[in-house]
């Protein structure tokens, strides 16, 4: 039987890193239904519009200082945003952080 691609949305969890939680109403993890990583992120930025500019450039590409993982693999080494998801998958957003001795500015 031929299953149309992207037709079945999977229940996935998106983990929000601390610096971005201010844009998701302080939630550390958001559940959504998506067939691909791109769809999950789209659903996330659809619900939390302010998050969009922190994850995506104006041209709609994921920002280079943000890494997105499906479970423990970087999506750049999978199928990028087209990476298909399975039920129970975890998507992690990992931005670069630099704190070490935190000198105030």
């Amino acid at each position: 039987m031929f299953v149309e691609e992207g037709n079945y949305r999977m229940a996935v969890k998106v983990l929000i890193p601390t610096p971005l939680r201010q844009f998701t109403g302080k939630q550390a993890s958001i559940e959504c239904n998506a067939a691909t990583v791109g769809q999950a992120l789209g659903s996330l930025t659809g619900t939390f519009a302010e998050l969009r500019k922190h994850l995506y450039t104006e041209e709609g590409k994921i920002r280079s200082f943000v890494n997105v993982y499906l479970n423990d693999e970087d999506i750049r080494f999978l199928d990028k945003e087209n990476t298909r998801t399975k039920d129970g998958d975890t998507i992690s957003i990992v931005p670069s952080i630099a704190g070490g001795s935190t000198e105030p500015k």
Partner: protein
Amino acid sequence: MAIPTDTLPKQEVKLSNEEVLRYSRHLIMPEVGLEGQLKLKRARVLLIGTGGLGAPLGLYLAAAGVGHLGLVDFDVVDFSNLQRQVTFATGDVGKHKTEAAKARLSGLNPTIEIETFETRLTSENALELFRDFDIIVDGTDNFPTRFLVNDACLLLGKPNVYGSIFRFEGQATVFGYPGGPCYRCLYPEPPPPGLVPSCAEGGVLGVLPGIVGSIQAMETIKLILGTGEPLVGRLLLFDALAMRFRELKLRRNPACPLCGEHRTITKLIDYEEFCGIRGEEAPPMTNGIPEITPKDLKARQDRGDDLFILDVREPHEYQICNLNGKLIPLGELPRRVSELDSSREMVVHCRSGKRSADAIQFLQKAGFKKLLNLKGGVLAWADEVDPTMPKY
């Protein structure tokens, strides 16, 4: 595979009877033993930053008997450091960090050599500084330096034991190990300034760098001994509030400009410019941000001028001290801009003047015209106008 520590002229390294006693708990372990302890004694490790991460790093590497420690920091001990930089004592406030750290670490272990470099790490001095050391440990707090440390380590073939923190989250890994990824494989570019909240604007749980720095110390020791599985190709993520550790795979990026197949970076660059920070140093008016000093603000208020004060800090900051302004945290400003009256002259402030500058840029785009940034924020107000105001 142990990192070779015999690249420098060989000298007969032995343990004195006193050292045998000092390190007895290492010596009785098969994973260390006399051979391992001698490796530690011959090792030369450079710590970049003697702050929150540098504190446990210095203490545990000194305690373990790393024979030669280098400490790089240009900063002076500040009272607010004592919440987390546990190498320092209250009496050290005002001293140079490298001097205070060296004293503390020598007290713990007088048998090791400690070399201090009271200097800012730059593209001009990094390569020469790193050359004499085997392992570099990155305990810095800003993006330009992290890229600098990574690039210098890669160019010299030295491993870079990386740790970073933000509020109550930490990351740790080992970059620059032969065959493993480098920092640029993970992050080819830095975030534009202001887009990722800085630690200063976020704060940090003091004990967090204690944990992450200790992990870095552990990884450094493992690399020296050639034992266990170092965090090469593994990004350890730590969430202190949930008390959870997670691990993500770090792969070498074949397109990495520094360590990939077609390298475009073969020497150190201007990292401040790379991170877009140089542009921030331009005088405020050329960026279109009009300013008012605390003294001038006070004068105008005393005169009875109708000035609306907008405070873009967080509620917990408002509780520490405030100028009776209306509080709309910066992150909420886009949503709540309709609460503001664009016909009134508005002074926007935060803690130090940076967030308020961002707020003004946003408001300008939203069509507000009568805006003034309080130069230096509440910190400057405390300095110039009201010394009873607490600084934080």
